[in-house]
């Protein structure tokens, strides 16, 4: 449904995006994930026909967005970062206007407007002036205007920004529901969102695509080390001595997190690649008379993958991983109570 090939956009001497290529199948939800300024919005604007690319081609529904711009635009529903709304209009009036300029025939308009209102939960507010709406409602009107003409392709630039948690859940449900009849591309910098909604995630960094896969595969693909968090009643040197013989074991370090009790030792053990060594660790420890009080596998989250791919400076990862440990400690404290 969407085919992008070697798309580049250059402003002066800096490239906003460089050689971006990807394809999205019909009915798929593709998530664009990346830090701010990575080129998500630029890519989406090119697809929507708002910006021309410097080089490369992008086809939407078989039409090239530069050479066949008007036809390609008819295939697209687009929600920009800031929802484009006319504050002096009512929701219904605005949707009628959008339906008109998108070329919905007069006979189909009432049905389409009702469909968009219903999908976005706006039926009870249809006569309200947009000026009087809260941010969450405005965002929903923004989504409604993107789907009102039933486009095969829907492009949503950060659709859940500024919404409260309940609204975020609603909007995610709404987007999931759209996938049946539409192809959706959305951008986000919220990682759980990408793994929750998207069939496929494309991570973009400094204008280049660094990875694209299903959210689950993305983690295994990257061979992020598996690590284990264990708590034992022993000293570091002894435990280290016992464990060093285990195949595929990478490192044994004292964990940042505090142990449940002060006289115990908390360790962080990593294996090479995705080798599972949990069983070996516990067997070795028990055999040596140091049964672990607690043992837990730490799975790389999409967040880790994301940081790995998008952060050059490794120290930033470390800084960020610390609060995670602190959280862990806090949860331990809860158990104590």
């Amino acid at each position: 449904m969407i085919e992008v090939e070697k798309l580049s956009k250059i402003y002066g001497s800096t490239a906003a995006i460089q050689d971006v290529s990807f394809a999205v199948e019909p009915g798929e939800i593709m998530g664009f994930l990346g830090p701010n300024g990575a080129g998500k919005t630029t890519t989406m604007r090119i697809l929507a026909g708002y910006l021309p690319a410097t080089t490369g081609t992008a086809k939407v529904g078989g039409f090239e967005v530069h050479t066949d711009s008007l036809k390609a635009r008819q295939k697209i529903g687009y929600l920009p970062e800031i929802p484009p709304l006319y504050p002096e209009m009512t929701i219904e009036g605005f949707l009628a206007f959008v339906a008109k300029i998108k070329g919905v025939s007069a006979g189909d308009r009432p049905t389409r407007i009702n469909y968009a209102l219903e999908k976005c939960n706006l039926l009870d507010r249809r006569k309200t002036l947009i000026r009087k709406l809260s941010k969450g409602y405005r965002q929903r009107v923004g989504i409604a205007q993107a789907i009102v003409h039933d486009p095969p392709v829907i492009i949503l630039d950060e659709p859940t920004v500024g919404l409260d948690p309940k609204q975020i859940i609603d909007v995610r449900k709404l987007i999931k529901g759209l996938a049946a009849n539409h192809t959706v591309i959305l951008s986000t910098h919220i990682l759980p969102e990408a793994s929750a909604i998207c069939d496929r995630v494309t991570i973009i960094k400094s204008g280049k695509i660094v990875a694209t896969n299903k959210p689950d595969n993305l983690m295994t693909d990257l061979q992020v080390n598996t690590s284990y968090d264990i708590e034992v009643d022993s000293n570091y040197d002894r435990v280290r001595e016992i464990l060093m013989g285990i195949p595929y074991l990478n490192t044994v370090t004292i964990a940042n997190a505090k142990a449940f009790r002060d006289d115990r030792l908390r360790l962080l053990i990593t294996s090479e690649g995705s080798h599972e060594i949990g069983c070996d660790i516990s067997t070795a420890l028990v055999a040596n008379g140091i049964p672990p009080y607690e043992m837990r596998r730490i799975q790389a989250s999409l967040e880790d993958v994301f940081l790995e791919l998008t952060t050059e400076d490794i120290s930033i990862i470390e800084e960020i991983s610390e609060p995670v440990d602190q959280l862990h400690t806090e949860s331990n404290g809860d158990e104590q109570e």
Partner: protein
Amino acid sequence: MKLVWANVLAIYQRELQSYFITPWGYLIAGVFWLISGFFFSILYYNLAAQSILMGSDPNLPPVDYAYELIRTFLRVLGQVVLFILPILSMNLYTEERKRGTLELLATSPITNWAVALAKLSAVVTFFFTILLPIVTYQIFALSGASPAISLEPLLWGYFGLLLLASAILSLGMFISSLTDNTIVAAIVTFGLVLLLSLIDAISNSTTGIVTDIISHISLLKHYENLVQGVVDSSSIVAFVSYILLGIFLTAQSVEAFRFQRS
């Protein structure tokens, strides 16, 4: 092609509607009516006094005071609208850019020139609407004149005013498409209007080939011709050229804006 016109109509309706559902349109209309009404009554009483004074002297040639009033008033209106029009045109594109709705229009299956044409038509229609009461009260006020006023020169004069306004609004629309600051758009458009007055002043004061050329591009000169009842196709062509130039430049600037945007 059919879709393009449907789009032009949709944007035209939306624009026009926005003048009538926001206080902005009424405010501009109110100020315009107040100023023009003030000038009309002054001119009316002046001429009435003059006619009484002169009318008693049988040696003077008879003067058509009503017609004189129409012409003088049209000239005054020509000056008054120069102040009103930049305020009407300043919002045309700046608002769209500020609200991000330009992104909606630009990603809809509609060309830039169609958007510009629709916007210009809407603002011209609004201007036409606020002229209507003025024409009406003028006809009422002069209905008792002797000799009876003929409507033709009056209507040509207002047609000229509409063309003058369209040309300025078209250029003002172009200026508003260059910035997202409403005040800047208004000030630059006002500067342009002053330039037009200057061109007119030059064409009136000197003679020579340069002046000839200048008088051809002077909008106010062409307007004066129509007010005088001289209906010349070259005047109409000049106005239409300005209007088309404005639409063309607007479409180009919106396109360029999309190319450059960072």
